[in-house]
């Protein structure tokens, strides 16, 4: 490592300014070089999200199929929502490629961790939300939807919440072209259509 005077031209500097730059020099020496960011971290979450929506994937599922999945997942949610939702589960086996933040009314916040596409074309993802109210109706639940034109078009899955924070994993095969975000909707008992949006990206 070179000396301060080997690196910094001090000609014309008053003693006070030279001392100030010398202090910076010492900090640079102590800090050492910053690491090179790996490619996976060079994109911000915002930029990563924009990229996701351009990925060509499988053909879009139709609304009826989504509704069928919704019904099936709702059944699971009724009987086993606590199995799906996990406020304490680890994430060690989930390789996160991107994170998309979500926000909602009140204190509700969340994010979607997206893993890489698997060999058959599914996108594993994990939704973690906090601040969503626990629904009083036993057959009410929340749904995560992909949006197009800011309207829910593809269902990712259903879940119930418990505790302060809930994690739910999904895997979806949808074509993400034209998709512009995600929303969480509240689904009252007996509702098949997307309910009111309570969180959005």
């Amino acid at each position, binding site marked *: 490592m070179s000396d301060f005077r080997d690196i910094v031209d001090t000609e014309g500097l008053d003693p006070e300014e030279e001392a100030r730059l010398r202090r910076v020099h010492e900090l*640079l*020496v102590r800090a050492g070089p*910053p690491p090179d960011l790996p490619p996976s971290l*060079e994109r*911000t979450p*915002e930029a990563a999200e924009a990229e996701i929506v351009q990925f060509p994937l499988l053909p879009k599922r139709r609304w009826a199929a989504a509704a069928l999945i919704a019904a099936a997942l709702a059944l699971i949610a009724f009987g086993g929502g606590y199995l799906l939702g996990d406020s304490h589960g680890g994430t060690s086996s989930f390789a996160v490629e991107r*994170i998309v933040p979500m*926000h909602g009314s009140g204190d509700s916040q969340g994010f979607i961790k997206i893993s890489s596409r698997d060999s058959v074309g599914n996108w594993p993802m994990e939704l973690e939300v*906090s601040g969503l109210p626990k629904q009083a109706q036993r057959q009410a639940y929340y749904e995560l939807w992909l949006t197009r034109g800011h309207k829910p078009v593809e269902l990712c899955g259903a879940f119930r919440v418990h505790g302060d924070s809930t994690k739910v994993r999904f895997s979806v095969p949808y074509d993400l072209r034209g998709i512009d975000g995600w929303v969480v909707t509240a689904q009252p008992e007996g509702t098949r259509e997307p309910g009111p949006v309570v969180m959005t990206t």
Partner: protein
Amino acid sequence: MTSDGELIQRAATGDRSAFEDLYRRYARPVFGLALRRLGDRGRAEDAVQETFASIWRSASSYRPDRGPGAPWLYAVARNAIVDRARARTEIPADIPDEAGTEPGPPEQAEQGWVAWRVHRALEELPEREREVIALAYWSGLSQSEVAEFLGIPLGTVKTRTRAALQRLAELLGDEEGI
């Protein structure tokens, strides 16, 4: 320049551009801290993701009257990195609790904080200034060799180096006693 604290407060309201600015400023310092403590690039990458998820999730807990944003971000990063270490049932990395006041080896604590602040400040330099700093400090090149490497006059290297240090002095300001 918008302060870190202001960006955290805006992120707390769902402002994603503020969150993106925080990411741009701190991705490298967080990665450096994680790499230093976890010793593995893959795990450090995961820790960066976790850190920024935590920042987004907990930004509303930041209180500007309790201090500037950088120490708060440092604490969030530290917690995320420790959590990452614990998640693998390994011995938690020894990370200082907060800047300058934590128990434990004081040299290590200060080293982590200094690197955090300096690497954060480097992100604000124009590319041409950051380039000469990197070459002058961490490549082992002399000023003349830097000039030759970049194909610019020696005087330009000196000017850029001094300008970079002056800019860093302003960025680091009172927090580093400059």
